[in-house]
């Protein structure tokens, strides 16, 4: 029997590795930013999965659906979820600044390829 958390952990690790491979090998800077976002997504899924519990509910109290202590016992961990809320916002800010930097580079050099830009090659 494969557990849900094993599937989610595997997915998140595969996403992180795919994003890392893309960030290392792609020459197009926009694809590099997309790869970084894929890494971001993988890390977020990983953090959410840490808070997974079997048959858990969303960590929100609902009035008129059983006693509050029973509800509290079945809640998933709210701490990673709050952390991921922060991580999504920070990831958005990083992506916006990175794309603007790429626009600046295109204005100056008329290219978004790393290999055609001196100083960014590897």
């Amino acid at each position, binding site marked *: 029997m494969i557990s849900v958390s094993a599937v989610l952990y595997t997915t998140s690790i595969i996403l992180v590795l795919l994003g890392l491979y893309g960030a*290392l090998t792609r020459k197009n800077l926009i694809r590099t930013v997309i790869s970084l976002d894929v890494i971001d997504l993988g890390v977020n899924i990983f953090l959410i999965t840490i808070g997974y519990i079997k048959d858990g509910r969303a960590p929100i109290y609902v009035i008129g659906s059983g006693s509050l202590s029973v509800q509290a016992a079945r809640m998933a961990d709210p701490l990673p979820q709050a952390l991921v*809320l922060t991580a999504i916002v920070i990831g958005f800010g990083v992506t916006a600044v990175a794309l603007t930097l790429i626009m600046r580079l295109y204005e100056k050099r008329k290219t978004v390829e790393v290999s055609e830009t001196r100083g960014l090659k590897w």
Partner: protein
Amino acid sequence: MRKVIGFLLIASFAFFIVSLVARDLWIDDPAQVRTIGQAAIGQTIPQSGAANTVTAIVVQFRGLDTLGEVTVLFLSAIGVALLSGEFAGRGLNELFADDGGFILHYGTRLVLPLIALVGAYIVAHGHLSPGGGFPGGVLIATAVFAVLMTNVQQRLSTRLMAVIEGLAGLAFVGLGTLGLLGDKFSFLANVLPKGELGFLFSAGIIPLIYAAVGTKVAAELSTLVTSLTGSDKDAGPASVSAGGKGGAR
């Protein structure tokens, strides 16, 4: 060659991660939360009065962190405005030169009030249901983006946006300072009456802070979109900034 090096790096990193994740995390599905989250769930109702545990953590237990998060978003909006200032009037401007076609133009008019309404609803109910200031603010900013996309003449004043954003930030800090006046003497302590669980007017300062966060996020993202699409009312004409005299404003 680069791909081989990349693949080797990835393989070693994969081995590192897989060996790092604790073994019982893989196979075991715990029936209950085993971390400090258990304490957070238990303390949510007595300390904050919010029905949504995640909101209680984000706004109250970890409120200072959220203040920092909003600051990061603010810095990102400032960075984008600064970096895109040089290509004001050029850049992505041609992409937004038409009204987006018939369907987009009239479809947006139809959906726009609903988008803004749902955004405001999500901001206001952050302490009762999933959502809150961040997703709601993003939705409101989406409405602004739709207006900029379909209306050629529409210009937004980034200066007005900056004023709204500053006021929202001040409201956040001011509400936090209220906590210093209460009996707990601590920044961002929940001193307002908590009300009844599950009602709109409950949870003390949490809905007020989330309203400030929602306003701030909406203003920030609108500034971001405005400066990236080159529809800034306050920026000078393209010839002025291209001539290196952008500092005139």
